[in-house]
């Protein structure tokens, strides 16, 4: 096993990996940018090194600098987390050249899965079910023929695309030409690659993915599925395991396909095969993520395994400590991604100081967090603060537990999407597991219904607001000196200032 591992990431996933290292007796090395000196992953790691200024390309994406740190501190391996360099094959190659183990798949597998069309070709060859369409770039004329053969509506996609860019839905032959050209120019602008292909459009699909795990001795297993259909603009918001619509038979079929896909790609370590599932429960290959997923905890809770421990063991050359038949699913897990963003204001990011943090705990509650009370969330990175994951014996109990945990969660000082989760968890379609990738956008299009009994609570809120004001007014009169002192710290609002004074008193 490695003696020292560098984590080329920040936020909750860096802390997650640091914890795994601590548990395995591995020294952990954090890297940080100028604005992250106070970040949680810096103080939790055994070592920490500055790698550059705030912009990610100069710090967390700075391959040369990160490898230099790894060499200097003697790290034997690098865990990339997710995002940043995690799917960057060039970085994986650079690690190999620097004789630092990249904790992930071989660069070849990353490159293969990085190109939509190459991946489609390879997966098709491996017998993985595909959405009908072309496996390679097409001319407009070819695209029109293909659309005619698979039947409208179709999707036009950029081969190098991602995050919805360079994608167009085409409902009829008439729209084909203009859509093809806009998609192509968008693809050229965004990815500097105009390759375009065509797929049949699957209406209201579910997004269901299979977790695979392969060692470097040819063994590959799958760890069940994750239901990730609750998305906003292709961004997952809530994930769960298992999926309410997947029976044991379908799970085995999807798993077998996923294992086959991974093997054919020469895949090792943790990876995820994403599928679209249509109303008839047909599943089609969407793409493979060649890294640890944000939502890996739900798989950990239902399998009882620790994916980061296993990643480290696999990367250090160990064989998988179990076989497929040893893996069983138990209970139900749900994850909510806590973001510093404002659902009532078009999900605009809301960085700033976390003035108060009350965290849920107790039975079946897991919080993977990258923040703490008093920390200022920087403007420069992804606004995810933490993940709240719950486990219970079945889906209804897990939903009820998540609601309870959300009631205990409180983040003061910045906007978060906490309020949105309750709306989702109380929606009859979510409760009945009638969800597809359009579910959340449909929900957001409807106005939030005031939770029941709210009216009666308004009086309590009014009285409380007055009590907070009165208590702080009292403090002010008693010690205006302290108030002015605290006022020097440029608090934006009188309310905040008085809350401070309150704080002095309460401590």
């Amino acid at each position, binding site marked *: 096993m490695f003696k020292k591992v560098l984590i080329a990431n920040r936020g909750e996933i860096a802390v997650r990996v640091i914890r795994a290292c601590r548990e395995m007796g591995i020294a952990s090395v954090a890297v940080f940018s100028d604005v992250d000196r106070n970040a949680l992953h810096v103080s939790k790691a055994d070592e920490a090194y500055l790698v550059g200024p705030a912009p990610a390309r100069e710090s967390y994406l700075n391959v040369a600098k990160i490898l230099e740190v790894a060499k200097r501190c003697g790290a034997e391996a690098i865990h990339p987390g997710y995002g940043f360099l995690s799917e960057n094959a060039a970085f994986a190659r650079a690690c190999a050249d620097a004789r630092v183990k990249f904790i992930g798949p071989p660069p070849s597998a990353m490159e293969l899965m990085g190109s939509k069309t190459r991946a489609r070709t390879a997966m098709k060859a491996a017998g993985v079910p595909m959405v009908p369409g072309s496996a390679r770039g097409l001319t407009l004329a070819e695209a029109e023929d293909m659309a005619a053969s698979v039947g409208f509506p179709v999707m036009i996609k950029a081969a190098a695309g991602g995050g919805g860019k360079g994608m167009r839905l085409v409902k009829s032959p008439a729209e084909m030409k203009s859509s093809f050209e806009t998609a192509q120019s968008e693809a050229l602008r965004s990815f500097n690659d105009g390759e375009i292909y065509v797929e049949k459009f699957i209406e209201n699909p579910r997004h269901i993915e299979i977790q695979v795990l392969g060692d470097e001795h040819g063994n590959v297993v799958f760890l069940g599925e994750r239901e990730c259909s609750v998305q906003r603009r292709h961004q997952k918001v809530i994930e769960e395991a298992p999926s309410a619509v997947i029976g044991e038979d379908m799970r085995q079929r999807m798993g077998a396909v996923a294992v086959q896909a991974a093997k054919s790609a020469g895949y090792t370590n943790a990876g995820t095969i994403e599928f679209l599932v249509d109303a008839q429960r047909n599943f089609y290959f969407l793409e493979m993520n060649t890294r640890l997923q944000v939502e890996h905890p739900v798989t950990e809770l239902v399998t009882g395994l620790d994916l980061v421990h296993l990643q480290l063991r696999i990367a250090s050359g160990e064989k998988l400590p179990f076989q497929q038949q040893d893996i069983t699913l138990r209970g139900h897990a749900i994850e909510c991604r806590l973001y510093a963003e404002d659902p009532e204001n*078009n999900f605009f990011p809301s960085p*700033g100081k976390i003035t108060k943090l009350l965290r849920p705990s107790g039975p079946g509650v897991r919080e993977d967090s990258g923040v703490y009370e008093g920390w200022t969330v920087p403007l420069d990175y992804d606004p995810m603060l933490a993940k709240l994951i719950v486990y219970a014996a079945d889906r209804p109990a897990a939903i009820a537990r998540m609601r309870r945990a959300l009631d205990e969660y409180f983040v003061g*000082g910045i906007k978060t999407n906490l309020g949105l989760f309750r709306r989702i968890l109380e929606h009859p379609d979510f409760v009945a597991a009638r969800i597809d990738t359009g579910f959340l956008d449909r929900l957001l299009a409807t106005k939030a219904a005031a939770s029941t009994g709210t009216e009666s609570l308004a*009086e309590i809120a009014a009285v409380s607001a*007055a009590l907070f004001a009165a208590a702080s007014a009292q403090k002010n009169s008693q010690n205006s000196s302290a108030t002015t002192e605290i006022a020097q710290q440029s608090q934006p*609002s009188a309310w905040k200032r008085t809350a401070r004074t309150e*704080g002095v008193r309460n401590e």
Partner: protein
Amino acid sequence: MIYEVTIAEMVYRVELVRTEQAWNCKLNGRVLPIDAVFVQEGVLSLLLDGKSYEVKQEIIGAETNIVVGHARFGVAVRDPRSFRSRQRAGASEQGVKKITAPMPGKVVRIMAAVGAQVEAGQSVIVIEAMKMQNELKAPKSGVLKKINVVEGAAVEAGQSLAEIE
């Protein structure tokens, strides 16, 4: 102390008297036998007729919310005797409305000049954070009286960026 608390256009008149260990409370003239304790900064434990409420005060920029259980209420508290409140009150009567930054960020574009006539809902200032842009709209129709920032300026949550009269 007397406060006027506004929640969703409803105004609640709350009278509070601090006694030895407790608060005496009247809501719109009606006595409420509350038992209130500040258990942590910004967290209040309120007992009323046996019901227990854990109430949290949420301050984000210029906005204050009160969270009761999982219900959240935007509140405006006014102390009729306080100078600042009178000012504010006065201001709103005169119909001056501010555009404030909903979160920290950078001003990337100012879309109207001082003195210009703007319509309610018209975008006036664009600020950016975490690679996302946000158009701040005029809260009312009127004349753009003041702009307190320039393009490229970094702004704090709650900072007043412009005034419309």
